[in-house]
């Protein structure tokens, strides 16, 4: 077998026209397979495969598998009972959706109320210290036991004044 492989290789390379090998190949199915493999390898190496499909042909086995599957074909129709179960579920789902949208309305309206009350009515000629297109930065100091309420209030006012001044400095920067 091994020696024939060697000879087969040289035969493919046109370096051997020994009739004995040809006969041997014609007789031996294994050698035939090897011959076709060698040819294929040669083609691929010489880039002559021209898009030759190297994939194993599996159509036969797939077709066979499909043939087998066909036996189960008649299980397509669903029993009627299942449809009846879907309807009440959808109804309930609809109820959930409405409840959720009500909750949405509540949230939205409370937001609007908050927005209205959030603008500061106490100071009359207000300079807008919110940066042009930026975000405002409300600040507050957290209480620590050592500080009195008055201290915290004073401190927050101070920070507020500093922050407003900072924004105005930016806005009036030439």
């Amino acid at each position, binding site marked *: 077998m091994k020696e024939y492989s060697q000879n087969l290789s040289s035969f493919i390379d046109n370096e051997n026209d020994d009739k004995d090998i040809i006969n041997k190949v014609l007789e031996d199915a294994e050698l035939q397979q090897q011959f076709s493999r060698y040819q294929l390898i040669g083609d691929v190496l010489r880039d002559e495969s021209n898009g030759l499909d190297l994939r194993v042909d599996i159509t036969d086995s797939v077709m066979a598998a499909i043939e087998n599957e066909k036996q189960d074909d008649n299980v397509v129709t669903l029993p009627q009972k299942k449809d009846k179960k879907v309807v009440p579920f959808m109804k309930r789902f609809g109820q959930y959706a409405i409840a959720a949208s009500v909750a949405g309305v509540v949230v939205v309206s409370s937001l609007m109320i908050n927005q*209205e009350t*959030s603008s500061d009515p106490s100071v009359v000629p207000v*300079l*807008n210290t919110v940066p042009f297109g930026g975000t405002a930065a409300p600040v507050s100091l957290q209480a620590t036991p050592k500080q009195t309420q008055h201290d915290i209030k004073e401190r927050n006012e101070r920070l507020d004044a*500093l922050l407003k*001044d900072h924004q105005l*400095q930016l*806005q009036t*920067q030439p």
Partner: protein
Amino acid sequence: MKCRLFLVALCSLMSLLVAPKLIASTEIVSTEEVDSQTQETAISYLNKMKQAYTQLNYELVYLNTAQNQIEPKRLIHGVVDGKRIAYFSFLNGAMRETLQFDGKISFYQQGNQAYSFATQRDQSIFANIANFDFVKGNKSYEYIVIGKGRIAGKKAIAIRMVSKDNYRYSYIVWLDLNSYLPLRLDVINKSNLILEQTMVVSLITSDQINPWLKQLSTQTKPEVLHLVTATAKVAQWDVDWLPKGFEIVKGDQHKLMMHDTDPVSYIMLDDGISLVSIYISNVKTRLAEQQRVIKRGGTLIYTKQQDNVEVNIIGQIPLETAERIAASIKPVR
């Protein structure tokens, strides 16, 4: 035997085919040069953004997010007779509008009297990034194109501006590949955490200026306010250390605007992107600790009390920077 010879020949042929590639790859300039090349592409994109942002007619709807607060806003920009005009408004809640045109910025707010300030500094949302001198800024930032994506329905390219030190934040800018307008801006700290994000959700560009905006430019603007509160032209204090790229752009003593307080010494720093305010005054209310830090998004309010002196630093800088600046403050001799 012959088959082996064939294989040897094949192998040598293969190696010959691969070799030129190997040679080429070693020839492709050193990595440093590659870096400078990518820097240049990034800078050219950023410069295109600068041009687009200041010269095109466009309308942006965008969101700012900083610590779970989201507010939709709109910016309409146009150019009238070579002059830029920008109109900004909040889309939710009370009407708050701003118009910047011809050296003036005017504020209109529901229920309050409108007023203007005289200023030439572009104060629209992407202005600080868009007007940055990217070539000069190369000393403080490295620019890297990090990839492409899609924002507001547009093809976008992301460029990272990485700070070369820890004294400033880094940024990621997303640009529309079509108009080069900015679409998204992330402010990130050194651990790559997004502190603040501005995201455009709708971008419309037009060849002609928005007619309504053009009409706005002809309207009389509210009176210009002159907030002269400075009591002295120089601050009583000096900053010994500044992060690279920062300069002192203003120094005075003034009463805090809109508050009748004792004058404070004031110093303003600018690195082309962020403006930082430093206030130095006497201690009014003693804090429990020597230092106090409030952060919101990328903005920091840093307070330090030492002896009877209180230093407040406000701006978009990391804490380390504020600490070092505060530590370097000394009275003027």
